[in-house]
């Protein structure tokens, strides 16, 4: 039992910090500055995976009582989730991972404030004290930042705000009505909506620039992956089964590997065609 729990913990920590570092790397170091596109791709991929999971009958999705009830519950949540992820990813373009993590410590404050407003929680001295404590800590961390970037901080705070609203909505629309979803069931129910919500935003903000640049941005992220894959292990790129892919991903995004990979794909305007074709 202890072994299982520690394995799961390590796996979760590696995956979640790996994902943050990968996103930071793609957006900021590899120069793929399309945060919305990245979230859209995530959502589409996750929807596809969750559908496979559903087809294989590995996850049970509760009955929701018709499309109207489904929309009323999940559209607001999906909207907030998409906004929170896109803003959070956009913040990586401006500020470092360390600073983002420090700002994220203020999420409980935002959540508490939103739940006071929605009447989900009653203000108390204890909670007010905690709010003051956390926000003064984050305030100090923010004021003492060496190279402060105002847009970066604002984007991250916006992401935290959306995340807080989303958490409260999950509480209000799902948990309070006795509905608890497993993560994969949530993926299946929420990510298609996220993708739909993101589509118009993506089409206006990023699609024109992305299409104008042609294959160059893709070459940058693709080439980096190929380079790493080649170094890591030939098996990683050929295996397709889910557990293997997971394993391969963990292998490919090994931070030590990523670090010395960075210079190889640094200048954004170097080549227009993928060299590996």
């Amino acid at each position, binding site marked *: 039992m202890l072994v299982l729990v520690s394995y799961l913990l390590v796996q979760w920590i590696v*995956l979640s910090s790996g994902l943050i570092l990968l996103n930071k790397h793609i957006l900021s170091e590899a120069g793929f500055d399309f945060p919305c596109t990245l979230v859209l791709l995530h959502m589409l991929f996750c929807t596809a995976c969750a559908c496979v999971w559903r087809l294989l009958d590995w996850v049970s999705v509760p009955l929701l009582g018709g499309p109207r009830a489904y929309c009323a519950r999940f559209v607001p949540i999906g909207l907030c989730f998409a906004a929170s*992820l896109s803003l959070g990813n956009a913040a990586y373009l401006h500020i470092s*991972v360390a600073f983002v*993590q420090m700002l994220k*410590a203020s999420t409980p404050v935002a959540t508490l404030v939103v739940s006071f407003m929605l009447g989900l929680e009653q203000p108390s001295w204890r909670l007010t004290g905690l709010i003051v*404590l956390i926000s003064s800590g984050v305030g100090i961390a923010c004021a003492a930042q060496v190279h402060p970037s105002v847009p970066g901080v604002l984007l991250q705070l916006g992401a935290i705000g959306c995340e807080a609203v989303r958490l409260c909505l999950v509480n209000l629309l799902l948990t309070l009505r006795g509905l*608890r979803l497993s*993560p994969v069931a949530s993926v299946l129910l929420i990510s298609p909506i996220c993708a739909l919500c993101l589509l118009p935003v993506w089409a206006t903000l990023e699609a024109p620039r992305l299409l104008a640049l042609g294959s160059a941005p893709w070459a940058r*992220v*693709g080439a980096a992956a190929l380079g790493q894959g080649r170094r890591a292990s030939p098996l990683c790129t050929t295996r397709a089964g889910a557990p293997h892919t997971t394993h391969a991903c963990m292998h490919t995004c090994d931070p030590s590997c990523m670090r010395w990979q960075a210079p190889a794909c640094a200048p954004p305007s170097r080549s227009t065609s993928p060299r590996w074709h």
Partner: protein
Amino acid sequence: MAGASLCTSFALNIATMALIKHTSALTLNVAGVGKDLLLIGYSVVLSGARVSAAQYCGYAVALVGVTAYSRHKRQLQAQAQAQALADMAEKQGEAEEEAAAALESGVAAEGKDLRDAAAVRARPIGRGLWSGAGARTLSGGEFADVGERKPLLDLAAEEEEEEAGEREGDLDGPITASSMVYYLK
């Protein structure tokens, strides 16, 4: 690279699901804080982020607050759980009395059904407890709020879930506790 990010985001959801299934709220809170510290350490040591001493102090203050908040939430959750268990035990008792009364009045054959129905009625519905502290761990595309722990009455409801599973099919009214049963084979 982009592909790795996509795979990781889905794998993370599976990992979160497994973790929620097997650990307690405390473990998850600690893991969340540990992960944050690890990321900050990595960012500073290996990718050259500049963090001043005053910032570490500020972050330490914020962490104390966040930890106190998680603790507060856990206490509330434990209280509600105890309350819900007590309620359930009470209702179970009533159900048994009803069944006994039914048996006495001669409807022995229907007694079992009555008891089953009462047990279903007594099944706890998830209370609206949650922990916003887990939200700090949001990354990329993780759907579960790690603060949102496994169903409150998982242990107590486990036996009932077995039988409830078969009845789920004909449920099409509002969502109830029995429809939220999920599992990973």
